[in-house]
């Protein structure tokens, strides 16, 4: 390659002017951090308590609801329960139904499929309430064991019973007194202090009802017992009579228990 050509080639290099690139400046803005929310001090502009009592909110404690709030429905249930207890002491007929009209509906879980937790909570609360009610009832002495009641009396007592008459249903006494007489003969009378435990007049009747329940349970147990059936102690007539008496008694006692 001769120098002439070389010179021409190098001229390409000398004459080449690369294009100028203008690079723009683009801002990448500084993004502040996210701001947590902390609230603000109490401005003491809250309306006063309607009864004019001081509420100390914002003074001794922050003015915020407690972390754990009761379930309104559960509280309503409790109140309903209380009202019922109180009502039972007053007049036996209106006890249960007294406040019913004004009470709010029971709570419900809007969408149990989505909120299994909510449903579980609700079930637990209601169960807890029933447990409380049940434990209140078990304060009364446990009913006597039927097996024990079915044991034969000692021969002396049996001999005594053979000789004496059972209480006569035609006596001129009211159902309550008659029931007590029958129970006394069978040694099933309710303990004297049963009424005092509940603290209201209704539980005296409740004690009597429990004793009668034991009596009838005992009666049924004997009647259904194959041994006694074979003996033919409970003839058709006797059974009907006893059933009628039972119905008569329970029908008379039952309403006062509600």
């Amino acid at each position: 390659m001769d120098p002439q050509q070389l010179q021409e080639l190098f001229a390409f290099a000398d004459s080449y002017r690369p294009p100028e690139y203008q690079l723009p400046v683009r801002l990448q803005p500084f993004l502040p951090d996210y701001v947590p929310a902390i609230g603000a001090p109490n401005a003491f502009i809250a309306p006063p308590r309607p009864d004019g009592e001081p509420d100390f909110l914002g003074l001794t404690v922050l003015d915020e609801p407690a972390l754990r709030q009761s379930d309104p429905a559960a509280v309503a249930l409790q109140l309903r329960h209380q009202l019922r207890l109180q009502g039972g002491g007053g007049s036996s007929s209106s006890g249960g139904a007294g406040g019913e009209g004004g009470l709010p509906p029971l709570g419900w879980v809007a969408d149990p499929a989505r909120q299994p937790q909510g449903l579980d909570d609700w079930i637990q609360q209601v169960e807890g309430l029933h447990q409380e009610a049940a434990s209140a009832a078990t304060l009364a002495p446990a009913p006597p064991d039927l097996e024990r009641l079915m044991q034969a009396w000692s021969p002396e007592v049996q001999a005594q019973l053979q000789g004496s008459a059972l209480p006569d249903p035609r006596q001129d006494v009211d159902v309550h007194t008659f029931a007590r007489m029958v129970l006394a003969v069978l040694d099933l009378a309710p303990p004297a202090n049963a009424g005092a435990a509940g603290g209201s007049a209704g539980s005296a009747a409740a004690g009597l009802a429990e004793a009668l329940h034991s009596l009838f349970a005992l009666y049924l147990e004997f009647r259904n017992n194959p041994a006694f059936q074979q003996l033919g102690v409970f003839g058709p007539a006797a059974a009907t009579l006893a059933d009628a008496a039972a119905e008569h008694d329970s029908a008379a006692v039952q309403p006062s228990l509600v």
Partner: protein
Amino acid sequence: MAAPALEEALQRRDFAAAQAVFASTPGLAKEASDQWHAWLLFHAGRAEEALEAYGAAAEAAAAAISAGGGKSYDLHRAACLFQLRRYRQAQELAQQGPDCPLKTRLLLHCAAKLDEAASAAPTSGAAPTSSCSGDWEAQLGAGGVEDQLSVAAALYARADFAGAAALYEGLLARFPDLHALRAYLALCAYMQDDYEGSAAHIEAYQAVQPDSLLAANLRACCDFRAGDAATALHTLGGLPPELVAPPAAEAGVGQLAAEQGCGPQAAGAALIRHNAVVFGDGQGGLQVLPPLVGVVEEARLNLVLLYCKRGDPARALGLLRGMEPGTALEFICQAVACALHGQAAGSGEHIQRARESFLAVGSSPTELDTVPGRQCMASALLLGSQPQEALPYLESVAEVCEGDDALSWNLGLARGAAGQWEAAAQALQAVQRRDWLEDSLYQSWLVRCLVRCGQPEAAWQVYLQAQAHAGAAPAVAALLGLLGSELFQAGAFLWAARAFHALEHVQRQQALLHGGALAASAPAAAAAAAAAWEGKRAASMAAF
């Protein structure tokens, strides 16, 4: 167990139970029951419903012609309005109420809020106290404990945190039983960036009242500010799960409940959900935050920031529409959204607005020497194409903001524009964000800086990465053109020849890809090819 009596429920702040007691107590006078209903709603943080209930109570009072307390319902309703941030209405209503300390307190706080909105542009410095609210303060300052506490809260609202803290300290020394004051002191300390002091105050409060959502939340915020977001999240996790969990399945019942602010813990739950997003660096924010706008004060700005981070400045702007910025942060958020949108859409109007907002913050006396203030000045200058002027501001915060990609980017460009090639390349190479690394503008600047500080091979690597990611895209061709010409100018002719050769290759690939579809632009393509060839020829020769 007996059902909780009313007083007991109130003592425990179990407003849900108290509500149930009232609902189940028949025979209460309508006015009284409305009043209690409203009071309980107010303290459960459900001001909207409380407002309605007080309205109902007022009507009941009017119907019963018990003229005595009828007027104070105006004050009660004003308090609800204040809680709902409807300050103007609250002020008007409060003025109709009977004169009493509550009225004065309400008017003071309305004025503080309205003042702030009217004249709190950071350029004007501290908001001047109107003579009126000064009178009220004097009047209340001599009053009872509640009045003095109210004054302290007003000081806090006007960002005089030291003044508020002094008042609280004094009162706490006189009445050590007022434990809530410890929590207020914690707020003051927090706002003065004393996070350790704040945590100590909160601990003192929690020792007395462990059952506090606000305290637990503030504690978490302190942890977060101290740089421990994980602990902060953990603290929130210790709260009842129904408060922390995002609305069930982001739809249906949960969503509705969140929107309406139902439940006795509505306000607290909103706060917790909001902060869980903040501590989680915005995670889940797109679902959680929108319903909280207007419920939690900070939610709007955080959502704006989230939209900006996710590259959706248009939505951020939509969220800001109608809002007059008051605090520095509000100005910054607006400026950022405008800048991003203006640059993306090429809207000069938005860029101008962004510059003004940035300047407003950067030149305000309170922000002059803060990091955000300098960032704002630099941003305004960069937006105004004055990168050299922006450089000193950026350099002054470079150390504090080390690791911030935005700083690396802006600093790199500003240094590059000032001809500090090596320092510029260093800054640019510190960028971590993937989408920014793939930005063609970033690559162009990096290539130029690398070539000009004598690292042609590193520059070539930048091209190779771009090529690997984008293929034969026009942006890659442009990058190659720049690379070639930069290399040629720098005298790295062999590298330049390589670049031009690669450019030719890319151009041919593009022509093949697009076939005849771009026939119209054929002359341009031919010219580009010729330029590439010329460059290649010259560089090859020069290499000899």
